[in-house]
C-alpha cells in the first residue's frame, strides 16, 4: 500500500474567495473550516483496518446492519421462492 504520504503532496488548499486580498484569518472560512487534513490523518493510521471499517464503531454498525439485511433477506428470499414454487392445491 504505497503512495500513502502522511502529509500528502497534494494537500487540498483551503478554497477561499481569492478575488481580492483578504485579511480574514483562516478559521473564518466561508461555510465551515477545512477538516480534510485531520481526516487524512485518521484514515492513514497504520492500524491494519480496511477502509470500510476505518472509523471504528459507526462503520461497524452500518456494516453489520447491511450484512444482516442482505444475508437475512437472501434467506427470506429463498424461503419465499420455495413456497411460491409449490403447486397450488385446488
Amino acid at each position, binding site marked *: *500500500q*504505497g*503512495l*500513502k*504520504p502522511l502529509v*500528502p503532496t*497534494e494537500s*487540498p*488548499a*483551503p*478554497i*477561499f*474567495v*481569492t*478575488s481580492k486580498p483578504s485579511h480574514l484569518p483562516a478559521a473564518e*472560512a*466561508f*461555510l*465551515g473550516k*477545512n*477538516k*480534510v487534513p485531520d*481526516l*487524512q490523518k*485518521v*484514515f*492513514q493510521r497504520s492500524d491494519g483496518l*480496511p*477502509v*470500510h471499517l*476505518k472509523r471504528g464503531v459507526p462503520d461497524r454498525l*452500518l*456494516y453489520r*446492519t*447491511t*450484512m444482516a*439485511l*442482505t*444475508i*437475512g*433477506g*437472501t434467506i*427470506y*428470499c429463498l424461503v*419465499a*421462492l420455495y413456497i*411460491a414454487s409449490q403447486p397450488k392445491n385446488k
Partner: protein
Amino acid sequence: MAHQAHSYHMVDPSPWPIFGAAAALLTTSGLTMWFHYNAPYLLIMGLLSTALVMFQWWRDIVRESTFQGHHTPTVQKGLRYGMVLFITSEAFFFLGFFWAFFHSSLAPTPELGGQWPPVGIKPLNPMDVPLLNTAILLASGVTVTWAHHSIMEANRKQAIQALTLTVLLGFYFTALQAMEYYEAPFSIADSVYGSTFFVATGFHGLHVIIGSTFLFVCLLRLIKYHFTPKHHFGFEAAAWYWHFVDVVWLFLYMTIYWWGS
C-alpha cells in the same frame, strides 16, 4: 512493509460488491413477490440494502481518494474511461426507447386511426411547460459549467453558489415534470402513444433524479473542501452525466414532444 512499484490502486478487501449483488437479488425477487402476491417486504429489504451498499461503497471511494491519496493520475484516467463508457451505455439504453417511438409513430397502424398522435390522444402543448423545462435544463448546463470554472479558479463562494443553483434547477425540473405527469390527459395505458411517452420520459426523469443526487453529493463535498483546483474528478463525472441528461431531454423534446404532437 513493501511499497508498490506502480501507480495503480490495489483496493482493500471490501464486502460491498457481494452485498450489492445480494441487494439486487432481493430487489428483483421482491418485485416478483409484490406483483404476484401483494407482499412488499422483500422489495423494501432490497431497496434498503441497495441504498446502504451504495452509500457505503461511494463513501469508501471518497475515503480512498480524498483521505488516503490513492487516486493518482493513472487511477483517475481509468475512472475517466469508466465514466465515459458508462454514459455511452446509457446512451444506447435511451436509443432503444427512441427506436420504439419511431417504429410506432412513423407508420401508425389502423388501430391508432392511421395517424400520429393516435385518434383520441390530446398531446401536451410543447410550447407550454415542456419548453420551460428545456430552458431550465439548458440553464443548469450553464450553471454547472460556471461551477466548474469557479472550482478551477479556486473561487469557493462562487463555486458553491453555482453548484447550488444547478441542483435547485434540477429539482425544479423534476417538480414540474411530476406535475405534468399528474395533469396529463392521457396515461401509460393509452395505446402505444402512452407507452412510448411515459417510458421514455419516465426513464429520463429517473436519470434527472440520479444526476441531481450526484450533483448534490458533489455540493456537500465542495463545501467540505474535498476538491482542489487541479483534482476534482467526482465533480467532473457529475457534470458529464448532467450534460448527458440535458442532451437526452433535448432529443425527447424535439422528437416526442414537438414532432410527435
